[in-house]
């Protein structure tokens, strides 16, 4: 894996307005929901970077912003050093492609698999006209489908096969970056494995860079090189996968990892790994966003919003916690 940066997102903000401004004033709430609230993220060429977090953390919104299908309110996205315009040219669109979660709703039900791919290849002039047919067959072979699949409609396929079609559609444009938003969450375990193996193979063969969004940490640990953990619109920790799983520095990451059900029977009599529900994104706590659920929160956490800072010893490992680099989490100051 090279150190060369391919995607660089800086200061990304995406917000949605929720309900009326009057209603929000009456309820003492904001009516603007900051789904992504000032995020810097770099993706290196050829790596698989995971975005993990709970629902509502903004991971899908960030991924869609990077893929260019979600307008951002602020910030810029660079691809290979070049800033992408808010309205991307079709060449720029081609370079970042996306695979969606639900293979049942992301394919046009009225088009055969062949025509879905033909249309793309023609519109973007990927191959000369007379090669469209043969290239389609080649794409289907690459994702492990029969060549006959070109004549079938999406509804004639199972979930796993549809996801293969969606992947064929994404790689048809020979993108450099593949953004996969929970590509295996809707699939059964045995099918999930085939899709994960396929993504890994394609990544190696085509030298793809992958941004992989998932809430399943076992899948992430298996597939990805680096992990960025999101909480309420912010990235709170980034590290190489092995480092993150073995030495998490943010209490939320530590809780998230401890909450994963394990194959070895555990002791269910203890306290849960993370207490409570995440706060409403319309009423964010002042200071650190995680402090309401944090086991080691102090006075300073209510006053200062911790910035994402790198470790003194490992520039690849950053965390947004006041205590991340002071002591080990176990020796962190007791709650007062």
């Amino acid at each position, binding site marked *: 894996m090279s150190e060369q940066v391919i995607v660089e997102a800086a200061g990304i903000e995406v917000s949605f307005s929720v309900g009326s401004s009057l209603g929000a004033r009456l309820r003492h709430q904001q009516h603007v929901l900051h789904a992504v609230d000032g995020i810097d993220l770099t993706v290196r060429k050829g790596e698989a970077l995971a975005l993990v977090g*709970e*629902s509502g953390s903004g991971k899908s919104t960030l991924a869609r912003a990077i893929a260019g299908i979600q307008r951002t309110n602020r910030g810029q996205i660079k691809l290979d050093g070049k800033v992408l315009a808010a309205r991307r040219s079709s060449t720029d669109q081609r370079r970042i492609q996306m695979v969606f979660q639900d293979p049942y709703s992301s394919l046009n039900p009225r088009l055969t698999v062949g025509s879905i791919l033909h249309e793309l290849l023609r519109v973007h002039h990927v191959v000369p006209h007379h090669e469209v047919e043969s290239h389609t067959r080649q794409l289907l072979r690459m994702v492990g489908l029969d060549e006959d699949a070109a004549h079938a409609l999406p509804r004639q396929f*199972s979930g*796993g096969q549809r996801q293969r079609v969606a992947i064929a559609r994404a790689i048809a444009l020979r993108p450099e970056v593949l953004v996969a938003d929970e590509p295996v969450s809707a699939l*059964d*375990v*045995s*099918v*999930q*494995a*085939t899709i*994960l*193996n396929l993504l890994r193979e394609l990544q190696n063969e085509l030298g793809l860079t992958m941004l992989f969004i998932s*809430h*399943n*940490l*076992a*899948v992430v*640990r*298996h*597939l990805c090189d680096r992990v960025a953990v999101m909480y309420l619109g912010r990235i709170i920790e980034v590290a190489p*996968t*092995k480092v993150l*799983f073995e030495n998490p520095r943010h209490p939320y990451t530590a*809780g*998230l990892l*401890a*909450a*994963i*059900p*394990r*194959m*070895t*029977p*555990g002791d*269910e*009599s*203890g*306290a*849960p*790994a*993370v*207490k409570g*529900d995440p706060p409403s994104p319309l009423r964010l706590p002042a200071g650190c966003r995680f402090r309401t659920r944090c086991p080691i929160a102090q006075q300073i956490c209510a006053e200062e919003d911790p910035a994402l800072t790198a470790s003194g010893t490992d520039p690849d490992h950053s965390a947004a916690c006041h205590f991340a680099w002071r002591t080990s989490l176990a020796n962190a100051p007791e709650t007062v």
Partner: protein
Amino acid sequence: MSGPLQLEVSDLRVQIAGQHGVVRPIDGVSFEIAPGEAVGLVGESGSGKSLTLRSILGLLPPEATVTSGKVVFNGTDLTQLSQARLNKVRGRRIAMIFQEPMSALNPVMRVGNQIAEGPRIHLGMSRAQSVARAVDLMRRVGIPDPERRFRAFPHEFSGGMRQRVMIAMALSCDPELILCDEPTTALDVTIQDQILRLLAQLCQESGTSLMFVTHDLPVVAQVCHKVAVMYAGRIVERGTVSQVFSRPMHPYTLGLLRSAPDVDRPDQSLVPIPGSPPSLIAPPSGCRFHPRCKFAEEDCKVSEPPLRLLDAGRATACLHYEQCLDQIGADT
């Protein structure tokens, strides 16, 4: 396990008459639950696990009928009961927790009243008594400020809180058995952890038995003592959780274990199960898994292998289960 069984399902068969023929989503399922035991039922979509759970309480869709088999609960065959008699069991002696709390709760009824309804109807409590009980239950399941939240509606609760309400409803009449249908699949991992711990603790305190349907093997490992694996409408393997997950005796279980990434073994490569689940209209002859099984031999195609009881509570429907064990031995 000694002592009387709480629930004994034997040779349960359910069929659905569809446009393209008769489908048998449950085809000869037998299992048992002893008092205080937590049993997991795992399998992929379409294996019939949810339907099996629902048929215990007669909650099948109208087009499905139980064609044979018994569901004996503390000596009574539930399949023979009238709807009126069954209603005295539902919620009172056997409670159920569903996957989607939002669609299982009444959206226009205050959550406290939904919890209090059961004790009022089944236990004959007065209004004041049932309200006090509901508040107490809400506190036990970890809903903060229960006196005030009693008057809230389901839409005012988060997913995790709604599932706590479902658990409070299930516990409201001190049932002997709780049936859970993927209760944490719709929840985030930190909330799932909270709910699983809560369920395990509450059941341990009250000695309630649990039947847990899920596709998530680690969740079963956390909550259950025993596990049954379903494939195409049949149970293919049964045993304690540690036996089945560490020494699977059916190639399908082995396949499930090897295709799911294990967070503690990141370097293990994923081996998918080849092929896809069979059509239930015309299932394959013999063992239903044989077209996808790498250990399959001629005898697997001939007749459907029954679930054979081995020692120490294990059962397998594989004729050549030794091969699975050899494979596990070769891997480690």
